């Protein structure tokens, strides 16, 4: 497997968990977090790979190495921010792969390739789909 240079923006539970797994898999990671406390928490795990700053600010993205990044994961809790990050990463910096988190399911329609999004995932929808499938399965079991 080829190790990739990956930037994760947003180090909430999702960003941190994702970062640990990807590092364990041998990839090169950096992180951007604008909240002081969250950045501090992330530094305890990832050390100086964490950059404190607004991921929508080109200067901060450059510090985190966007010029050499192959993958960007915009995982902040703010859909506008994730869209701006995708737009910058794709159209200004030419990053090959831009993945974005969708926070509000109603905003899913905004996450399109012409806005720089290569793939988008909504944790709420994913969890809901899982629960729905599980409920359907249980309902069938009870019936039979």
């Amino acid at each position, binding site marked *: 497997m080829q190790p990739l240079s990956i930037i994760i923006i947003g180090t909430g539970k999702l960003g941190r968990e994702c970062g640990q797994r990807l590092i364990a898999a041998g990839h090169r990671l950096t992180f951007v977090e604008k909240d002081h406390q969250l950045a501090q928490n992330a530094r305890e795990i990832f050390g100086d790979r964490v950059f404190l700053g607004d991921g929508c*600010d080109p200067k901060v993205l450059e510090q985190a190495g966007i010029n050499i990044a192959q993958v960007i994961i915009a995982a902040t809790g*703010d859909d*506008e921010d994730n*869209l*701006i990050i995708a737009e910058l990463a794709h159209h*200004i910096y030419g990053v090959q792969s831009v993945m974005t988190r969708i926070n509000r399911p*109603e*905003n899913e329609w*905004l996450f399109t390739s012409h806005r720089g999004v290569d793939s988008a995932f909504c944790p709420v929808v994913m969890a809901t789909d899982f629960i729905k499938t599980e409920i359907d399965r249980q309902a069938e079991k009870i019936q039979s």
Partner: protein
Amino acid sequence: MHIIIIGCGRVGARPASLLSSSGHSVVVIDKNPEAFERLERSYKGKTIEGVGFDRKTLIEAGIEHADALAAVTNGDNSNVVVASVAAQDFHVPRVVARIKDPVRAEMFPKLGITTISSTLWTSGRIFEYLVSPELHNVFSVGSAGVQLYEFEVQNVLVDRMVRDLSVANEIRVVAITREGISFIPVLGSVFKRRDRVLVAVDTRSIDKLKAMLGLSS
């Protein structure tokens, strides 16, 4: 024209009221209904409580047949997202986003999004006023390739002709205000002390204008 304004703060409410009273069909969107109190009493347009990038809200506002849209909320990022949606998904012919962050204000035009940055504009004006109070910028044409400046005639120009301050393609005197009365001069018009002069300048020639007026640049 059918015009949608997102954000009813001080920046949004004023153009909304003006556009409505000059007969345009206007819709203002804001997530906080109290913001609509900023609209003038004469405002005849529609108000919608909602988030500017909700598809339902935009369609309710008539984005499918809108002629123009301005995204002027407090949030730079949501303004850019709304502007991008309006231009790319709904093909609104005229779209503008207000951007406070000067870095982003200069970056998004590269992505085809027209931005207006009050921070850039205001800081530019303040800088100019501090270093050369004699010369005020009153208007930037287009994306600021040409500027309109105003100044009061001082010693250097008294009894000189408009011709002396005219440079083809670079500097042109547009109007003179003398004792409260404004007129459009000809090349042979003569400057008097205390005339207020409006001049159009190519942005690259501002230092030349300052030199001609005897101001340090």
